[in-house]
Structure formats: structure tokens, C-alpha cells
């Protein structure tokens, strides 16, 4: 089995997969599955099970509708759009932030028990505060602070102008700080 070159672009890998090379899809998954799971987990209020469902459904749509990818945007934004749509479909009725162990998607420092407990409380408070944002602002915040995501990509995924995205981000951070009582400034 020929491994796809790591330096190949996403679009090339997708094309190879559509040509019958399953391993190309594996390479795409290696690049994006974990980030997608993280984003989905954040959007779905920390529900890892729902996040898995959303990502699994995302890959299914990539497999089924990959031929319809016309290249008008980059593969990454297309993939994230699908993932966000799946999260939206799984969100109704709106998912309450998980209070159980699944919320441990946030890494906590378990070397010091007191510090770990404090961090867990902060994580829960943050997730609850994000969950109270309206959907536009919540998605902007989650996408903009998602690993490796630029503002331009986030704007393209959300299909909003870059200026709109930044204004929403500013408003969302202000609201979060107010909610959390933070003293930091942007």
C-alpha cells in the first residue's frame, strides 16, 4: 500500500481518495479528526459522544459528497462547514453543557490536586459562560480560538465578512469577561 506523501495538499489527498485510494482519507483524518472532535466537543457543550457522532457523520458526507467539492474554497473550510452543520443538527434541542466526566475535554493539571480542582471549576464556568452566548458569538469564539484556525478561515467557514467576525469576537469576549468577572483586556 502506498502511503500518501505528508506534504500533499488536502485537495490532492481528497482527489486521491476519490480515485480509490482509501489511505488518502486516512491521511486527511490524521490531520483533521482530532481538531474536529475538539471543536465539535466545544460546540456541543462538552458532549464527547455527540462530538464523535458529528465527526463520524462529517466523514460520511466527505465520502459521499466528496465529488461535489468544486475547489471554490479550501478543503479545510469545506470540512469544517460540514462539521458545524452536523453539530447544529445534533444541537436541537440545545445541548446543555455536560457536568459529568465528559467535560474533561479541557486538559487539567493533575499533578497538584488543589490546582486540578480549581482548574476544573474554571473550565466548567467557562463552558457554561460560552454556552450562554448566542449562537453566532459562540461559534465565532470557538472557531477563532480553535487550534490552527485563522480569522479569515473562520469567517469563510461561518460565511460572514471578516469585519463582522471581528466585531462579533470582540462582543463575545466582552460578554465572557463580564460573565466570568475577568480583568483581562483584549
Amino acid at each position, binding site marked *: 500500500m502506498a502511503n500518501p506523501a505528508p506534504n500533499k495538499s488536502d485537495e490532492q489527498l481528497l482527489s486521491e481518495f476519490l480515485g480509490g485510494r482509501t489511505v488518502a482519507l486516512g491521511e486527511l483524518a490524521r490531520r483533521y479528526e482530532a481538531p474536529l472532535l475538539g471543536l465539535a466537543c*466545544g460546540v456541543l457543550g462538552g458532549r464527547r459522544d455527540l462530538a464523535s457522532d458529528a465527526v463520524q457523520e462529517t466523514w460520511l458526507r466527505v465520502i459521499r459528497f466528496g465529488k461535489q467539492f468544486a475547489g471554490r474554497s479550501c478543503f479545510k473550510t469545506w470540512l469544517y462547514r460540514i462539521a458545524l452543520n452536523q453539530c447544529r443538527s445534533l444541537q436541537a434541542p440545545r445541548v446543555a453543557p455536560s457536568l459529568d466526566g465528559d467535560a474533561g475535554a479541557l486538559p487539567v493539571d493533575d499533578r497538584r490536586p488543589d490546582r486540578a480542582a480549581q482548574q476544573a471549576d474554571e473550565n466548567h464556568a*467557562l463552558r457554561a459562560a460560552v454556552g450562554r452566548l448566542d449562537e453566532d458569538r459562540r461559534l465565532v469564539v470557538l472557531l477563532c480560538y480553535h487550534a490552527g484556525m485563522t480569522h479569515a478561515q473562520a469567517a469563510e467557514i461561518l460565511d460572514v465578512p471578516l469585519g463582522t467576525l471581528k466585531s462579533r469576537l470582540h462582543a463575545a*469576549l466582552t460578554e465572557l469577561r463580564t460573565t466570568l468577572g475577568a480583568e483581562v483586556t483584549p
Partner: protein
Amino acid sequence: MSDTPITELEQQLTALTAWAGPAPGLWRRSLAASRSGAKRAGRCWRLTGRVPGWVWGVSAAAVIFIAIGLAMQPRTARMLGIEFLGGMDRRIALTPDAGRGSESRTDDRFEFKGYSYESYGYQIPFGRNAKPNERLDARVALAADKGPFWQAGATDANTGSLTDRQVVRKAQVELLAKDVRAAFLKASHLISEAQGEYVQDSSVTGSGDRVEANLTLRVAATRLADVLNDLRGLGEVRSEQTGGEDVTGQVVDVEARLRNEKQVEAELLKLLESRQNAPLKEILDVRTSLGNVRQTIEQLTAQREKLGRLVSLATVLVIIRPADAPPPKPPPGLAAYLGQSLLDGLHRGALFLINTLATIVGVLVGGLVWWVLLVAAILIVRGYRRRRSATAG
């Protein structure tokens, strides 16, 4: 990322969308699901084959459409045992034609359980469930009611005495004759037109050795015995049935009511004459009452005359068949009955299948425009859903 310096909040937000641990390889499950045709439903996977949802939708619509079409088909409804009461009057209007050939056609038409044609006052059994004699009686009863109105005058004498029994007489004679047509002509000449008798129905069906003749004679009740004797001389009597229905009670009832109404009429007339100077309103009221009473008298008189016609003219159904006609088959045994039932079932099943296919073809062809519109709508919805699912690439 934000151009602002990294703050603790931003670090926590970044951690909020970070996945702890390795990727579970969900893409493999999706790939396997795609290959097996499985469709995700919530948190479960269910196998639906490779049939997409729109196919199920179209299939369901087609099944409903065809089921409605089938249910609206009279032939299918008849197969399913649904009775169409709307067609009853039309079918009954065809029944009075007497005769063996007509009888077999009647059997084919009347596959329902039975009807009650109450306006004639008879309970008329039809169809395969009715016994042969019942069918005959029904025909004779209907035929007896078809006498012309001018016959009424000849019957008053017979209904004059209420102490006599008032009986509607009917008879059936089945004859075997070497020359069916000659016997048919002789039978039709047995009536005496001078006494108001007439041939109500007559028919000759078939040809050669299979010719059959049928007559329904209306003869004076007093001459019934003579006519039957004459008929016996036309050939070999295979069967003969006579019967009568006592309508004395009905006649007495009608006569009593008629007398009563006439008495009321006389009283009203007397009242009208004695109160000539009464207010106009009272006179008008009396006249209205008088009109109602006279209308009732006319109805009762018509009923009495009708009963008189039924009583005065007996009905004779004559069936003439060739002398060398095969004898009727004996009643079948259990095995033969089983075989015949299976054959009938097979026949009915085949008919149902044919009707179903015909209906399906009718629905497909007749609803072609709708099918095209339905397919177009499905394609539009499907394309829209695909575009939505795949998102703009």
C-alpha cells in the same frame, strides 16, 4: 488567531476546543458505513440497504395511490366484498326479465348477498346465496306487480267480498318439448285477452338443440288451473311449482282505512254545508282538511287496486327446453365440492390479479402527469438536500 496578546481567557478558550487524546479513527467507521449502505440515525446505526430515503417516499406514495385506485374500482370492491348500494336500483331494474338464459346472466350480475326492494313490499333474495326457489319467487313477485293499470277495473269484482281469501297466485312450469318454438307459440296463445290476460315477458334464447324459451304469463286467477292443464299438454313436465301469498290482511286493512277516510270526508262536507256563514278562515281550514282526506283516499284506493291486480291475475312462469336436453347435474359430493371451490377460488384470484394489474396500469397511465410532477419535485428536493449536505465546496 487574535492579534492581541495571549491572555488566560484565550488560553482557556483554546483549550475548550482541544481534543484530549488520540483521534479514535472515526473515518474508518464512516467508510465502512458508506460501503455497507448503513445510514446513521441518532446514535445508532441501522441498515437500510442501499435504498435512499426518497425511494421509500416514492414507494409509499405509489402504494397509497394504487391502494386508493384499487379501492375505487367497483370490480375490486366486489372482490373484497364491498357492496355498492348506489348501483342497486339499476341492477334491480334489470331483473324482471324471466327466463333461464336471463337467469344465468342475473346470477353473474348479482354476486352480492341480497337486496330488499321495499317499495314493492317484497323481500327479494338475489345472488348465489339465494335458493333457486327464492330467486324464482322474487322474479315472479316483481313480474306480478307489473300489470297494466287498465286491468284494475276487471279485478274489483274479485276484491269486493272481504270474507273471501285474497291470494296472490303464482306458478312455475318447466317443460321439455321436441319443438321448443312451437311449444312457445302455443303457450303464448293460451291467454285470453278478452279477460285481460297478457304475456308479460317472453324470450327465446339459443339455437338448435340448445334453444330455450321463457314466458311470463299473466292469467286470470280463476283460469290458472285451466292454463296449467293446457301447458302440461305442450310437452313433458319436468317440474311444476305453484304457490300463493295471502294478502287478505292487507286488503282488509286498506278497506277499513278507506271507509274511515270516506266517513271523515262526508262529515267534513256536512260541516262545510252547515257553516256557510262561518268566517272565511274556518271555511278555508275545513277545505284544507278536506283536501288532505281526499288525498289519503286516493292513495288508499290506489293501494286497493294494486292489491286487486295482484290477486286477479296469477303469474305463470313457463320454461321450455328441448326434450333431449341433458338432465340437470346431481348435487356434487364433498370432493367435487372441494375441487369446485378451489377452482372458483383460483378463478377469483386470477380475476383479482388481472383487475389489480389493470388498475395499476390505469393509475400509471392515467396519472402520468402527476407522476412526472412528483418525480420532478423529488429530484428538486433531493438536489437541494445534496447541496445543503455537501455545502458549497
